[in-house]
């Protein structure tokens, strides 16, 4: 794979992966909503 292919894959995975883990970190540690659990 050329450096461009690697770059696209790493950036693509990096952006999506970071967003996913950041969101779930915020959801799991952030303020709790008004859910009737």
């Amino acid at each position, binding site marked *: 794979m050329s450096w461009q292919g690697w770059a696209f894959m790493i950036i693509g995975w990096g952006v999506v992966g970071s*967003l996913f883990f950041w969101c779930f970190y915020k*959801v799991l540690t952030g303020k709790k909503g008004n859910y009737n659990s």
Partner: protein
Amino acid sequence: MAGPRKREHWGSNIGLILAMAGNAVGLGNFLRFPVQAAKNGGGAFMIPYFVSFLLIGLPLMWVEWIIGRRAGVLGHGSTPGAYESVWRHPIAKYLGIMGILFPLVIVTYYNYIESWCLGYSILSLLGQMPSLPGLADTSVAQVLKPFSDFLSGYMNAKTLMGGQVVIPSLPAYLFFLFTFILNIAILALGVQKGIENLAKFAMPALFIMAASLVVRVFTLGAPISSDQTPLSGLAFLWEPQWSALLRPSVWLAAAGQIFFTLSLGFGAIITYASYLDEKDDIALNGLATASANEFAEVILGGSIAIPAAVVFFGVVGAQEIARGGSFNLGFVTMPAIFSSIPFGWVFSAFWFGLLFFAGITSSVALSQPVIAFLQDEYGFSKLRAALTLGVFLLIFTHIPIMLRGAMDEMDFWAGTFGLVLGATFEVIILMWFFGSDMAWEELHKGAAIRVPRFFMYITKFVTPVLLIIILGTWTVMDIITPAVKTVIQQGFLAWLRGFLGSGVGVWAGRLFMVATAILFAWLIKLAWRGRQTQGGKG
């Protein structure tokens, strides 16, 4: 008609996100995305894909959460009442027909496709799948023939009326009945006990199975040829073909993929968001839902089927497979690959198991708008609403199952065109009729994050324009151009003959959609008239 009633609520934040992600993560994440990426410029496809995510996907995701939560607070969980809650106009409730009609039409055939996944998963475990004849010196089509024959035998055991009527095999029908009953049972249990519990089990299971398959694909080595490795598979998917960026069709394909993958325009997100309280966060939860879907699609979905196909069939073979479409990749190529690796039956069961979980979490979401409509507007209990839907589906699912051409026709109008149409209306209704400032205020009620204000302008100006362009292009490309071409080349009468003689299945599908739309219009009229009468008495 029913008076105000206590509506259900989600039991937990994580349950809500998993259910929303379950709605979004479907068969398309693992089958449609890799095929689209491979066909439309590889790595370069990701540029229009991420642009579409930011300009269409994310704004629409928030639009649907805003409309849904507001509607739920006002006692509505489906689009007729939801649209009226943000646009006080007599026509708003009738525009809402789209948000119950399209998911209902889609689920009419989706349950059947979902049952194939369950069937293939169980048959893999039982060792009943065909085996590979050998990979050397034969074409891809020859190698895959036992598997394509198996699929067509599974779906079409017998044909009648010159092939217009199709009788599925007994296992296919039994797996469908089981899947159908399971769906109705989950819906009858309600939002918390049914849908949320399903998502809490199915979504982690789906991620674990997908991760196991990614590891297995990455450790395949080079069983056929030294230049056919998992890395060459990833290169096939990610190597950018820059010229693709100049093709409008690539941008259109990327926008379409974002639409399908996030399950936008169906009405299902609006219904799920209606089970929230006024102060529950929707800004972060909406983003988390979208991000979970993208993780399942870009990282997991892109690392299984296409890289595996390149390892076994090479880049040329994988291109041929990708041209054959998503179903060819999922139900023909993947079983062939699994049949040639040690313990392939386990991975085959995992593959179809994850597709089944992706399917069932989406099909209950597609069914819930009608359930919510019957509960909120007609006062039905959960059980009565689920059984009513069950009887309706049990009768009409036989149109796409048994009549050739019906499924494609229904998928085009409801599953492709309808979604963009529905989304165009909902973004205009919220951002222009309800008001963009008020919509942004709604988004930030109880919000755990603050969304940058430029997204408001994107949602108000850019998103509707892009949706109208997509809608216009599809109308011209898929409806007007083929018709005009036939009229010019063969004359109007030839076109009319072709249109009228589209086949029993196509016409049955069209008739079903029109009749259901009329039925919903009548039901909406009755429900609103009943409410007015009650209001008058009160």
